[in-house]
């Protein structure tokens, strides 16, 4: 595979971006992990890198956090060149990798103290900072226990806390909720929102479309090492442009009839979800949602079918992903 030339123009406001990459290329032997990736993240925002496994998300994070050198391209953090001044970049960033980078054989407090001392906070200030962060992340009570005894959610919180010891301007979170139960995932989400409210720029990778939708002001959809689309969640949905009609008959065995009616009215293919109770169809561009709804409702009435749910909504990010990349996001399988 060869890398096509980057077709993006460097924005005039390059200096003001918290994170910027231009034409990043990284190959591992025959495999191209990044094929000319461009990114521009404004300061103070939560930005989502969304893509399936192997899309190149982690490679981007590793390059931006100075752990890996790209084969070609440029990257900068707050205007500082990542390749030329890595030591200055390290003072600006915090990294929470995909694998918890905390020491299991130390206590939570010692983990934070270690980072604080490495960042050369004076003795007492280092202890205070460790204590503050434990408090803030709900780990004050567990602080004296070895991390080995922590749950997955607690480790992840400690990991994020460790990456915040130096109050970084830019925080990288590589799949921060992978492998967490729904409740811990909610905790991490709250945490990310809190950070953004405090002015930290967060670059977040995820394969969970819902996560990017919930947290990010901007999303870059990545596929095969390249950004295939960039925008706000709403813009991405609007870009794909389609609305979806969804309805659920009270009696599941009428779903087939509903499917026929919907297909007939919209002129599109109607599908049933896996459980077979929810019928949906993408409205063709230019459809008037209200008119479609009214027509469907009238037909249902005539056929004597009672519905539990009926409505028109914007396409989900899953659908956006499918439309942008031409293949399914392998997300549902991963969950």
């Amino acid at each position, binding site marked *: 595979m060869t890398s096509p030339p980057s077709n993006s123009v460097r924005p005039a406001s390059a200096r003001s971006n918290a994170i910027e990459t231009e034409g990043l290329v990284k190959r591992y032997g025959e495999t191209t992990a990044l094929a000319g990736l461009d990114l521009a993240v404004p300061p103070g925002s939560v930005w989502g890198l969304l893509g399936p496994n192997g899309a190149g998300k982690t490679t981007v994070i590793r390059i931006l956090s100075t752990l890996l050198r790209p084969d070609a391209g440029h990257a900068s953090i707050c205007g500082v060149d990542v390749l030329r001044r890595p030591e200055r970049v390290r003072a600006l960033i915090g990294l929470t990798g995909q694998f918890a*980078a905390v020491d299991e054989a130390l206590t939570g407090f010692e983990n934070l103290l*270690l*980072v604080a001392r490495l960042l050369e906070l004076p003795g007492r200030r280092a202890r205070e900072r460790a204590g503050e962060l434990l408090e803030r992340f709900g780990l004050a009570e567990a602080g004296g226990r070895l991390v080995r005894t922590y749950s997955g959610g607690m480790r992840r919180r400690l990991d994020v806390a460790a990456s915040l010891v130096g109050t970084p301007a830019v925080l990288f979170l590589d799949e921060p909720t992978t492998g967490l139960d729904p409740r811990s995932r909610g905790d991490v989400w709250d945490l990310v929102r809190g950070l953004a409210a405090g002015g930290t720029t967060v670059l977040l990778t995820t394969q969970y479309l819902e996560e990017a939708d919930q947290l990010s002001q901007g999303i870059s959809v990545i596929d095969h090492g390249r950004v295939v689309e960039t925008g706000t969640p709403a813009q991405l949905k609007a870009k794909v442009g389609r609305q979806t009609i969804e309805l659920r008959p009270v009696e599941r065995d009428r779903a087939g009839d509903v499917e026929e009616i919907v297909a007939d009215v919209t002129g599109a293919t109607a599908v049933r979800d896996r459980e077979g109770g929810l019928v949906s169809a993408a409205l063709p561009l230019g459809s008037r949602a209200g008119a479609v709804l009214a027509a469907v409702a009238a037909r249902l009435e005539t056929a004597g079918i009672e519905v539990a749910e009926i409505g028109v909504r914007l396409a989900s990010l899953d659908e956006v992903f499918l439309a942008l990349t031409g293949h399914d996001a392998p997300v549902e399988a991963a969950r």
Partner: protein
Amino acid sequence: MNPMRTARHSVTLAWRTIVKFRHTPDQLLDILLMPLTFVLTFVFLFGNAVSGDWHAYLRFVIPGIAIQALMFASLGSALALNTDLRDGVYDRFRSLPIARSAPLIGHILGDSVKYALSVVLVFAIGAALGFRFGGGVAAAVGAAGLMMAFALATCWIGVLIGVVARTAETVQALSMVLIFPLTFGSNVFVPTAKLPGWLQVWVRINPVTQVSDAVRSLTLGLPGAGSVPSSLAWSAGIVVVFAPLAVLAYRRRG
């Protein structure tokens, strides 16, 4: 990065290693049990056969076993480092504004506590069985310094293995391939003169032989201190070659 800051970062990371010994002292068990087993096995099983008298063999073998214990302890370091590297903890260190070599130096500094412990233990067991220092305090301190210098040198080989190897099994295998010819292919257990001629060639070059000879002459108060400079030269040579290689491999590790 200036040397003062590198030193500060390294000491902080050494602190991490030592705190871990305190939390989980059982990780010290292997390095403490191994020398005990070796001393007892060799002294009582082979002592009479090699030297005609196990007391005489004890004096001969204790300094060598101390050096072997050091080599095994540095194997343990290689393993611990390798695990650390795969855990993602080192990704954090590498993304912090600290000296690149600090995590490796800190690792070695912290583990030197383990090295010192294992040497003290071997000589303590030896003393309990009748080993006597014949060279005086200054010579014993000199011997200790010589051994630590050698341990701090050879552990860079361990660090290189730990950084390069992809799995813990590789670390084990590589370490064994190194340690066996170095320790058994030396005069640690059998005097050089009693070995076959072709083997003597290797045994005489072997740095472990040089260090054993030097430590023997210092602790027992024997002549033959000529091996002191050559063992120091070996330690220096090993650091000069392997420390930069290890740091380079560490930097390259994506």
